[in-house]
């Protein structure tokens, strides 16, 4: 059911290793190059952030676990290039690009980088979906953390928070639904809420009775608490 990226609450990962703020932004030159390369592919307009995330999540679990952060980004980009007919497998294998792409006019130019980063990609959209919940209301999440439209598809309800009771603490407006958008099924915008869930609802041994986890969840992930 779940995919490898859905690791919230997992045991066995060991210590978190802090690093000084004075450390370089990029620890290796290729990290910087990978980040910039992947960001620049967005300029072609061939996919959105949800499709990109799903491409990384579809890596084989053993690859996902073995790869560093920027390797996952790169692997996701390579998959998207092939799946969308932008680069062939033969080109990847040979290391040589064969001719100018039809998408070349869309390539990101240096003079457009700053404005592209400053413009961002807001996810809020108008929606006809009626806001169902109000702040303070008791809700519960779907029992099964899975895409309802595509088997094994993208969703943003983590497994650890499935079937949990909480309360609405913020209404964020109406945003693109990743479960739909990641599979080119339309934006499907609907209300998004911050939902506070007591740690005791999620974990066998919560650290403290007052602790909470707050998740941003789409309306279709939620129901009134039973």
């Amino acid at each position, binding site marked *: 059911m779940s995919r490898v990226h859905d690791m919230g609450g997992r045991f066995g990962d060991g210590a978190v*290793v802090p690093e000084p703020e004075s450390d370089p932004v990029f620890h290796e030159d290729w990290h910087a190059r990978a980040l910039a*390369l992947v960001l620049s592919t967005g300029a072609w307009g061939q996919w959105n952030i949800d499709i990109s995330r799903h491409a990384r999540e579809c*890596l084989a679990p053993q690859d996902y676990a073995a790869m560093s952060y920027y390797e996952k980004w790169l692997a996701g980009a390579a*998959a998207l290039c*092939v799946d969308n007919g932008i680069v062939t*497998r033969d080109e990847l294998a040979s*290391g040589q690009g064969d001719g100018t792409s039809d998408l070349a006019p869309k390539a990101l130019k240096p003079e457009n980088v700053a404005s592209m980063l*400053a413009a961002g990609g807001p996810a809020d959209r108008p929606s006809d979906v009626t806001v169902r919940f109000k702040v303070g209301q008791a809700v519960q999440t779907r029992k099964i953390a899975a895409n309802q439209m595509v088997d094994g598809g993208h969703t943003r309800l983590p497994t650890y928070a499935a079937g949990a009771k909480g309360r609405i603490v913020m209404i964020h407006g109406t945003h693109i639904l990743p479960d739909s958008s990641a599979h080119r099924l339309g934006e499907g915008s609907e209300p998004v809420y911050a939902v506070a869930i007591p740690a005791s609802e999620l974990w066998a041994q919560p650290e403290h009775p007052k*602790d909470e986890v*707050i998740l941003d969840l789409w309306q279709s992930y939620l129901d009134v608490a039973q």
Partner: protein
Amino acid sequence: MPHDHEHPHSLLPPEPALRVKALETILTQKRLVDPAALDEIIDIYETKIGPRNGAHVVAKAWMDPDFKAALLADATAVVSELGYYGRQGEHMVAVENTDDVHNMVVCTLCSCYPWPLLGIPPTWYKSDAYRARSVREPRKVLADFGVELPVDTAVRVWDSTAEVRYLVIPQRPAGTDGMDEAALMALITRDSMIGTGLAIAP
């Protein structure tokens, strides 16, 4: 002839630096990527967009109650006025640490992070250990950072599962009355704005 069942990344060289170079070369040859644009992206995130942006916002919130109230009410509008709107910071929410509540931010599903205010996330933020453990045992994760909270303080862990990005306003340390903006900014660490650290006591 490569096999279709192979994941495309496995067709590239095994060594990561060479893998990046190979894909950049192919895309450059196809006129899909201009290497000078990549240089520009790197320069912006190395020299222009980083955690000093967030520290500027927090220092202003510490100094000006009206600014803080506006920030807590509509962070996106307030940080946009300071020029800190942009990619991965399109929908901002600020949350304030108090004696009663300590806020901490994670993204368990990937590595969502408020880039315009804090820059590119540090390695630990993107690590499996932080993503896996923060929601279940935030106090043990804080201990990895040398932070111990008072016993009555509740922890609120914000899992960034949508396109909303969170900025923690750390508590202002005692003994900082009368400090100017620049002096306060020096106390506001990146980690204190993620919630894995506290502001530095002068």
